[in-house]
């Protein structure tokens, strides 16, 4: 089991390396920080720009391959992911950004999963009844609504509530109010900041799980082994709850791998709309600032998240499916 996970991790490490390298080449060949420098006043000469970038390890005169080797060398020997055009070290900011993103997503990831699966089971048990139609239609509706617009609509709603009450209950942007006193006020402030993004990401996030769980459960509701369980003397509902449900978790567990990067991608939008300075927002800012190293670092982070999701999915699968466990 452990060996199997190790092996999978090894394969994902190779993949992360390849995607990150590919991302670096893409970034290095399309992002040109020197162009932005030209807009500075006083306008620096190209030589000055080159010289300052050379100091930062961003020498524009080297070809992509040379820069790649230099960049990779830094990571391998010193775990140094390079510097931004303004001289900041990627490593220095990285941890903060990851913390912000993780804080933003963790609650909604868990809520999404739990609510989505629960609603999927609930709606499958009431197939074609009103509850099922409402829940499932909602999920399909979410599918045709782009995430940023959905978040924006939630934001509008929160502003509406604030205005209706005549008092700022929810913060629609930002992480916390600067200079808030610790203790109870800080906690209230935290909740007020968390509420809107978490709510938005959760209610627009569970749709996928709901549909998948509903479908997988329905696939199993009429399975032969459910019939066997009923023939034993279990009621239809007991048979479904005890037998079909457990089996229907297997593909859901597997699908987690592919939803985690989706949450991460949705995270870009959430961070952008709710102005949380996490990894996603950082990467978009970095790209508009033509910052090769930050863009690549965030891309690598995305790949790692994916790999973690995939390994977790493998792990979850082995937990629920004894057929895999033996191998």
């Amino acid at each position: 089991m452990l060996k199997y996970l190790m092996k999978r991790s090894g394969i994902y490490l190779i993949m992360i390396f390849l995607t990150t390298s590919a991302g670096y080449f893409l970034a290095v060949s399309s992002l040109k920080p020197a162009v932005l420098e030209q807009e500075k006043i006083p306008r620096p000469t190209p030589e000055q720009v080159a010289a300052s970038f050379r100091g930062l390890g961003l020498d524009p005169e080297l070809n992509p391959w040379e820069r790649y080797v230099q960049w990779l060398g830094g990571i391998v020997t010193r775990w140094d992911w390079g510097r931004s055009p303004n001289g900041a070290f990627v490593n220095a900011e990285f941890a903060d950004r990851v913390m912000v993103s993780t804080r933003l997503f963790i609650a909604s990831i868990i809520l999404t999963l739990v609510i989505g699966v629960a609603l999927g089971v609930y709606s499958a048990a009431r197939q074609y009844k009103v509850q099922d139609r409402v829940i499932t239609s909602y999920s399909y509706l979410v599918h045709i609504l782009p995430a940023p617009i959905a978040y924006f609509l939630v934001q509008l709603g929160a502003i509406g509530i604030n205005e209706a009450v005549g008092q700022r209950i929810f913060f629609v942007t930002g992480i916390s109010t600067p200079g808030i006193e610790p203790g109870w006020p800080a906690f209230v402030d935290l909740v007020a900041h968390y509420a809107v993004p978490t709510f938005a990401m959760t209610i627009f996030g569970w749709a996928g799980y709901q549909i998948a769980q509903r479908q997988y459960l329905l696939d199993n509701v009429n399975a032969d082994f459910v019939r066997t369980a009923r023939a034993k003397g279990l009621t239809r509902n007991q048979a479904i709850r005890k037998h079909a449900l457990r089996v229907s978790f297997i593909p859901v567990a597997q699908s987690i791998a592919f939803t985690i990067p989706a949450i991460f991608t949705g995270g870009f939008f959430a961070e952008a709309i709710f102005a949380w300075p996490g990894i996603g927002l950082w990467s978009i800012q970095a790209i508009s600032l033509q910052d090769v190293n930050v863009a690549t670092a965030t891309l690598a982070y995305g790949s790692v998240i994916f790999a973690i999701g995939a390994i977790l999915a493998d792990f979850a699968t082995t937990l629920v499916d004894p057929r895999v466990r033996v191998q």
Partner: protein
Amino acid sequence: MTNIIDPIAEIDEARVGDQDVVIGKSRIIFRRFMRNRTAVAGLFIFLALFLFSIFGGFLTSWDKDTLDPLNIGMPPSPDHLLGTTQAGIDLMALIVDGTRTSILIGLIVGGVSVLISAVYGCTMAFFGGKVDATMLFILEALIMMPAILVVAVATSGSGGLKDLPSWLLLVVVLLFFSWMGTARLVRSLSMSLMQRDYVKAAKYMGVPSRRIVWRHLVPNIGSLLVLDFTRGITGAILAEVAFSFIGIGIKLPDVSLGVLIGQATGQVSSFPWMFWVPLTVMFLLTGSLAMMNDGLRDAFDPSSSSIGRAKTKTAKAAK
């Protein structure tokens, strides 16, 4: 998997010999699709929007490059059916243009990505072994890459791609990330088709591989591809809106629904029509596609719920 409803299948099987109840497969599909009222409605809405995006220009005498200095930031009026922007541009003209861009992006990305996935998936399945393993590895590596970052890099960079119009650039990038899932499906489906006895029979007759692929494999993955085409269109339109909304997709002077929605977010309270009108159009567009897709899926899938529903209805009617 056999299940409780098996007896029905059993009876269907036994009854097959009776000629008068048997109908052609394409007719069954068409009939099922047409019976699904939602799907038909979706088809009509989509066609209406499509025609609107082409001929909608005739509904307004203004075009998107002309300012109306007398009507700046005006709500809908007889002069400007959908109102104007704060720059005084007729919103109707913008929407017609934006819808056209969105549909164009959707159709191109949907269509081309289906082609890529069909070719890639079939190739993997057909050659198998090392070729399959390598191509699968590439596929998974691509799935791992966060698409959004690549989109952002490609559209914001100053490299060679910059010369393309922004919508075309977006099309290229979206294409790059849209085909992997389907390719995987095509692969597994073709692999199972290759195991079918009729493919083996052709092989044992000495029919050349190319012919087998063309005559037996391609038509049989057709339904998957048709479904994926509509799904791909929806996906591409949504992605365009999302990316343009946060400013990394289509850039002015190109106009798309996403750009229009994104631009209007700042002034939802003062110019609400500028936000809600393009949003509604986008909803109609993606919604109609989703409705059609639902109907197509039911029509293609013999075990789909549409039969189940018909069953309950007629059962009640019978009593």
